[in-house]
């Protein structure tokens, strides 16, 4: 059954009004298969070739945005179908026929497409103003671009050429700081690259780069880096050492408590936050994955109570482990956040080199 043969819908009057309305915005909110596209096509055709003698709007001056490319293709097809059907109708008024014929030439150049396609079209119209390659391609998956961004960053940091990489960009002034930050992070034992095994994914600095790129429309606050609160760290370390003092025995949990206390005690004179961060991270890495009284503590009460005290599981006990890490994490995180402009600038360079545009930029 063609559209012309379809029986009138119960709300046909409202549909017709939506087709005719020109002075106000029209919102159609309806379920699948109820005729939204039909109404949209009718409205477009009524605009490009009005039956009431109104001034036609050229199809190329209209934009029809769809959610998917398939829908865009279908819409273009339906517009052409409807224009042809209208032209085939008997008794066509010459003025309207002319408008329909003119519109028939336009669907291939009209703005009918997805929001990304629409944005793409605008950018291709003004590549100079958008500072783009004239032959850029929209990449669906930016993983490769992110990977190259990471490679460029880490190579430049390791060869101390980041300033040269960023020359002429607003991020150039951040180059030396970024180099220092990444070297500090590596010194603090942060993983450089994520490693995915069958067991789990361990995230590295490359994951941070990827996150910066993917969320670059929501930049983190560009605050000054936090100083290292060494007093807070030392207080937490002292609390741990004190809690672990009575712990003895060969059970893994007890051995970890005692070993960690020894390590922390050995760091009393150390002020370098990178080294402290590294030591704490390594101590935490040695911790048995689970801490159960019978298995990891051999049922020993003293060690178990000490563990509960430092982990914050004991009622009213301050979480010593968290307090131990917090000053170091704050110190490092506030520095890493300031890599954002550097990462984004390098990413833009990579995109330019590859003549690529991702969907976020496109929009």
């Amino acid at each position, binding site marked *: 059954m063609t559209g012309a043969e379809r029986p009138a819908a119960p709300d046909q009057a409202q549909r017709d009004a939506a087709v005719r309305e020109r002075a106000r915005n029209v919102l159609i909110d309806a379920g699948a298969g109820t005729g939204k596209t039909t109404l949209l096509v009718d409205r477009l055709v009524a605009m490009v070739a009005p039956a009431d003698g109104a001034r036609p709007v050229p199809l190329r001056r209209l934009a029809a945005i769809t959610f998917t*490319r398939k829908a865009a*293709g279908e819409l273009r097809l339906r517009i052409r179908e409807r224009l042809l059907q209208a032209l085939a109708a008997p008794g066509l008024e010459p003025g309207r026929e002319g408008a329909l014929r003119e519109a028939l030439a336009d669907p291939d*150049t009209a703005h009918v497409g997805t929001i990304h396609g629409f944005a793409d079209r605008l950018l*291709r119209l003004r590549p100079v103003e958008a500072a783009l390659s004239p032959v850029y391609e929209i990449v669906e998956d930016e993983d490769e671009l992110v990977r190259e961004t990471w490679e*460029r960053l880490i190579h430049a*940091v*390791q060869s101390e050429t980041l300033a040269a990489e960023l020359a002429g960009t607003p991020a150039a002034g951040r180059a030396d700081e970024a180099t220092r930050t990444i070297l500090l992070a590596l010194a603090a034992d942060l993983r*450089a690259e994520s490693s995915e095994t069958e067991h789990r994914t361990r995230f590295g600095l490359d994951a941070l780069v990827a996150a910066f790129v993917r969320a670059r429309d929501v930049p983190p606050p560009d605050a000054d880096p936090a100083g290292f609160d060494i007093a807070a760290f030392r207080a937490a370390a002292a609390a741990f050492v004190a809690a672990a003092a009575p712990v003895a025995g060969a059970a893994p949990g007890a051995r970890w408590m005692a070993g960690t206390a020894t390590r922390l005690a050995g760091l009393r004179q150390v002020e370098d936050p990178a080294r402290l961060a590294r030591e704490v991270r390594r101590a935490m890495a040695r911790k048995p*994955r689970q801490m159960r009284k019978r298995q990891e503590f051999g049922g020993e009460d003293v060690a178990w109570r000490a563990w509960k005290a430092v982990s914050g599981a004991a009622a009213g006990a301050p979480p010593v482990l968290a307090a131990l890490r917090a000053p170091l994490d704050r110190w490092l995180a506030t520095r890493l956040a300031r890599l954002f402009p550097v990462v984004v600038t390098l990413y833009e360079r990579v995109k330019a080199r590859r003549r690529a545009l991702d969907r976020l930029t496109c929009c």
Partner: protein
Amino acid sequence: MSGSPPGASGPITVCWSVDEWAGAIVRLPAAGPLPCRTVLAPREPVAHALRRALVEAGHAPALAGTRFVTLVEAAAAVLDRAGVAFTPGEEDLRPVRLLALLGTDLGLEYFSPGLLRDRPGWDVALARAIGDLEAAGLRPDHLDAAADPRLRDAARIWRRADGAAGRSWTAARVVAEAAARLARDPGLWPYHGPALAAATGHESLAEARLLRAIPGVTLALLAARPLREGHLERVRLHHGPAARAALLAPPPRRHGSERDLLASYLFEPPRVLADPERPRSGGPDGTVRLEEHAGVDAELDATADWVAEQVASGIALEDIAVLVPALDPLAALVAGRLAGLPWPGGALPVHVAGGLPLTSTPAGGRALAVVRALGQHLAGEALAEVLPALRTAGADGRHLTRGQAVDLVWSLGTGGGNPAHPAGALEWVDRLAAREAQLEAQLARARAARDDPERPGLARPARDLERLLADLRAARPAIAALVDVARLVVARAPLADVWPALRETLSAWLLQPGDGPRVPALLDERLAGLAGAAGALGGDEALRAIERAIETLRVPAGRFGEPAVYVGTVSGAAGLRFAAVRVIGLAEGHLPPLVHEDPVLPDALRAPLGLATGGEQALAALHALDLAVRAAGRRVALSAPRLDLDRTQCEPSAVMLEAAAALGRPDAVTGARGAVIPDLAALRRDAFAPARRAATRFRREVPLGERAWQDGIAHGALGLPPHWRGAPALDLERLAALADDGLLGGRAAGLPVPGLTPERPISATALQDLLRCPYLYLLGRLLGLEDPAGAPLRREIEQPAYGVLVHGVVEAFFAAHGRPFCAHVGTLERWLAAADPIVEHHFEAFLEQYPLAGDRVRAVQRERLREDVRDLLRAEWELGPRHFVAAERTFGAPVPVRLPLGPRALFLRGTIDRLDTDGRRTLVRDLKTGRVVRRVGADAAPDPVGDLQIAVYGLVAQHLAAEWGMPATVGVAYVGRHGDVRGFVDDFATVLAPAAREWLALAADLLAARLFPRTPVPADCQYCRFRPVCGEQASERAARVLAAGGGPLARFRSLKAGAGEAEAPGDAERGGEPDGAGEADDGEAR
């Protein structure tokens, strides 16, 4: 119709077909005993088609004295006569010329120099824009005063490019100059007699001027639909009002078949289609098919079937055309699919008009990979990717596999360049030399160790080293040649120097199949000219120019006119004629194409200058399609995929609607007359569905390809084809055996399995795999299926390399200090300090063969190794004083250890990490770089998978105690990261050994019976690499299979029932990092 319109230089003939065009040639007023005519054809294939049409129409005598020339040839002849000297081919050189120019100060207003320089592609875009302006008969001077700064900038760039080009001219320039001179002096026309020139209205302004300037020319106007006002106006401007009027005449109408209806009414105005008196189709008659396919692949299959159908119906190959909206990538896919059709004496002949991309040939793709690797400064990944494309040294024409290349490159340590350090590309030469010397030394040690059981067993197996060394020596000359080219790039040498060096490298080392194109020779033709145009263009930009030359170069595929199926674009087929035409890829947005605005000259600037706009380009595509349909004498097929090449769902092109409207088929269900313009539902019902049925019918009757057979068999319409039965790869019995859950049994009695004979000993880790999942053992160990080789992490030492490194350090420590350390001589701190130089030495040696990038990264990894070694030493120390016996004690070499297990025996070989005694007991230890699970709670009982390895070592130590001079009482333990221990020190003989003997007896029985069932325990599959092979329901199926079996299968089921969901203690695949040493074990013998 004919006439002599005002404003045009001669009469006009409207042609709706090649035959009418040929008729126009005959009608040219050439008189006398030796009549001379000149026919200006767009291309040589069109001239060929015209000659053929003349002969077939009985006008062969008209060929005598008729000269066929293209417009550019005629223009060149005019200039020659005018004494104008020029060199053609500038269109190929201009982008490179511009690339060189964009680095200089051009004094531009609108375009930013940085943008043009830093954003790739502007050279090509500007070259195209200048070419368009040139084709409109413009010169830079015409644009100097233009209002738009883009045009003024274009003029500046154009003028500089022309200055650099000298007398090197594009075809557009040749035509424009000839038109201007001929208009001033008609006497320059070089040919005698009347001339007939073809025009479509889509010519450039310069072409139209040249046509008008030809004295006494008759214009053969190739008419096409749809009519659009803008196009008619363009025709009026180019060829006069009579030409415009001539196009308005209706086309000749025929209605003998659906093909005639389609040719008569396609793209006709709806009012004409709505005429109730006009002829309509009575239903499909086989001459027209409108098809829709699930995807491009299905469309290609249908294309092959359709071509076969045409051949079977007696149509000559050269009369069959498969047309595509754009040449790439569909043309190559079509050609490939057609070549697969059965044809006497080889592949079905196919001619691809315009040729195939050089990169679609193996040698072309490899050449591109080489250039891109150089562009990536020979980074490790790039080198590993490109090495398989290069010949190795020696006369056998061998090359490395990808796996070999990956292994080799990443065993060379850190090398190669990067954007921050391009000169790193040059480091490979030194790395290769140093590594070769190291491998030679390692190999000598390994060979010695192979024959000496007292020597450390963790040295890389000699055979691996031999292979690696052979690969290195074989690949070294090719890598050195690449580095020579990279040296020029790093030094920013000009293209004129880079290309000859690269050509030499490609000639010497690129793998090129015997009958493929000689890539260096092909490229030389293009790049020799480019080198002259490139000026100072050097380094990376020179590489980019070479890369683009490779990407754009095409190689001929067949020859027009010979008996071969024609494959080409719709627009390229304009002016040709065929008996059967199939147009594929008619998805929405492909034909007519979605046209983008030109980045330099958008439509708003183009229209006033007389340049074709986007809308006119789309219309030209529809006109070409109309011409193609009219040129199909007997059959037409139009087809569209539902899923695009990029996997996007799409609707059929509106062309399908218009084709269906032209046919006017009745409703396929009711038989009633359909709407004038059908909707998509009607299209599918009345056009696509009947076409699908017809194609299926042919496919059933004549199954030509594998897909047709599979489809037919799946639907029960066809029996098994004879060629499926004999082929080993498709031997259904063999497939059934593999699918039979690994229960090979007697059918695989000849399959050699390790462990049962002294000639093929088995290792503890292989037995561990066997009891984890026999099917895993079958696939991984017996059939040797492995993960594809991949690049290692470069900022962390991966397993298993890290495990091997740790074992190496610990082995060296105990070799040097084992006795005093185990005797607790001195303090632990002293021994920890003593371990540091060993760590340092091993780490430095390790870096020679592992690509660990960056000083800070290396420092972190060095520290990690030091810490882990210290942890292991602390754990050892805490075990108390003992008597050290050996580290890395090899057993079973050269004669495997025979371990009796009831009626059978297993033959074993391997290496025990540590052997000590405490006076009354032999202590066996295995070091793990991952975590181990302590014997606590549910984990206290022996585990048939996790504890098997240490149990085997314990049993071997027990077996060889006398030979080794050690106590026969044995205790065993795993020592894991951070000093965790899982031990059977006091209860080995009572708990682990009896259980292990049962496990090993079962393993021997499974091996002997060739039974390799899957494990019924889902946890065993959790990290298995063959999980996708077995599927998600594998465990349930395995449980059913085992429940139905007796003997070893029943015992295996019982064993696994005991294991249940429990985790495997000490097992490398659970609880932490995989253990390096275990992974490094090759499963049979070390």
